[in-house]
């Protein structure tokens, strides 16, 4: 795969939020803190974790034929990265989201598992992880704008809030699924 394909696939066609439904807690209102800061922290942790996972996979698991331990490796890498994160930010309680938010964050766990093992090339993993983060952040911004508009519509009371948000997500999925069909010659 060339880099344009990787960016396109990670950004649109395999968007982690809309296509794999990972990291939904960020817009379902279960997280605290501003959207921009959380996306930035998630993105930084994502890129670092993907790179660490890729290197560890390449130099530890593959030479010793330990590929069955990949899921374990994901959690190990995430534990190490969040340890570093909490050591770097722990001096100011409340200023940063706590590290335990990130240890089992589905966006990080699923994303590292999907992106980190997608290619043996570290440079391709770096490209894919940056594109995945941009796609996730873009989808969050677009969805929050859509929810802002939905709040002004006349909608049956039993649908307001969570059901409507999930159904809107389904409709966005339909659009991206169709785009994936339209580009199916290009994106696997």
């Amino acid at each position, binding site marked *: 795969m060339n880099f344009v394909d990787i960016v396109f696939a990670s950004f649109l066609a395999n968007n982690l939020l809309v296509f794999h439904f990972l990291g939904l807690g960020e817009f379902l209102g279960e997280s605290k803190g501003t959207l921009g800061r959380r996306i930035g922290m998630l993105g930084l942790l994502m890129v670092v974790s993907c790179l660490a996972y890729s290197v560890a996979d390449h130099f530890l698991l593959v030479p010793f034929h330990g590929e069955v331990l990949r899921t374990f490796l994901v959690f190990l890498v995430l534990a190490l990265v969040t340890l570093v994160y909490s050591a770097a930010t722990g001096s100011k309680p409340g200023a940063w989201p706590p590290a335990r938010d990130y240890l089992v964050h589905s966006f990080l766990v699923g994303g590292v598992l999907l992106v980190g093992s997608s290619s043996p090339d570290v440079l391709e993993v770096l490209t894919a992880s940056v594109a995945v983060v941009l796609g996730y952040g873009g989808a969050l911004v677009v969805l929050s704008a*859509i929810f*802002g508009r939905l709040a002004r519509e006349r909608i*049956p009371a039993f649908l307001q809030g969570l059901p409507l948000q999930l*159904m809107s997500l389904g409709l966005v999925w339909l659009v991206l699924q169709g785009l994936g069909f339209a580009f199916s010659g290009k994106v696997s």
Partner: protein
Amino acid sequence: MGSRMPQAFDKVTTFRFHLSFIVALSPIVVASALAHGWQVLVLVAVSMIGASVCDEILRRLRRSTEPHDWVAPLWGLLLALLLPAQAPFYFPLLGGAFAVFVVKGLLGGGGTPWINPVLAGWAFLQVGWPSAFPPLNLTLGDHRSAFDSHVTDWLNTNLFSWVSVQLPGGYLDLFGGVGHPGTALIVESGPLVLLLVTIYLLAKGYFPWEVPAFFFLAFCLPLVLTGGNVLFHVFSGALLLNLFFLAPDPSTRPLSRWGLILFASGAGFFAFLSRTWGSGADGVGYAVLLMNLLVPWIDRRFRRKSLNDLRLA
């Protein structure tokens, strides 16, 4: 909707607005029926009646007292135009039900959905039954009519030879909407008719000129730069219908002028991408749908200045 600022004094009601679109689009149905046979008429009728019945059910369920604005038959007509002429009769029923119940009823509220219901119904059908939608007719000129070969030859010898260009065969068939092999979209029968009725609707001010203009520019400029076949891509598939009727839909387009320009340019560029790297069936509708998703965000960024913003006090 199409009216100028003091809307109370304008004679154009929402009902009349929708009705004029239906009337303007009906010649394409006639052209398609002439090309593909009577089942096109049945398909369009099923689609329009099905969407209207769904809308009536929704109104009864909600005990709505709003006046009928005839938007459901328009959605049915537009959806039918996007379907292949040989589509089974349950296609427009399913797509219309999706457009009315899911998009209008559940997601949009009272007739102002944030995503184009017609295109959402079409995407629902195309994702569900991808093989039913024909690929773009790339074998141009294999099925030339006698009219096409005669007129193309006449134009080439008498007109185009003066400026030393030659029109290849098949384009007049494409333009007039005849000569397609069996599987073609209904709307592909009438690029000529569509352009004619669009002049009328534009003159009435029923949709802003920015959307078609910038959609067209953003679609054609990259196509010219990459050496694509502009004539073929403009007149084939559902591009013209998306350009003039689906993208400028009043409830799913941005409010401000810069927003409209950004929206239309993005849709045109994604349409170019889907035509250049797409496989098989026409993906222009997805380009419009993708930009529809961005409209709330665009509205937030490029909204019109209100008196509040000026901070007069």
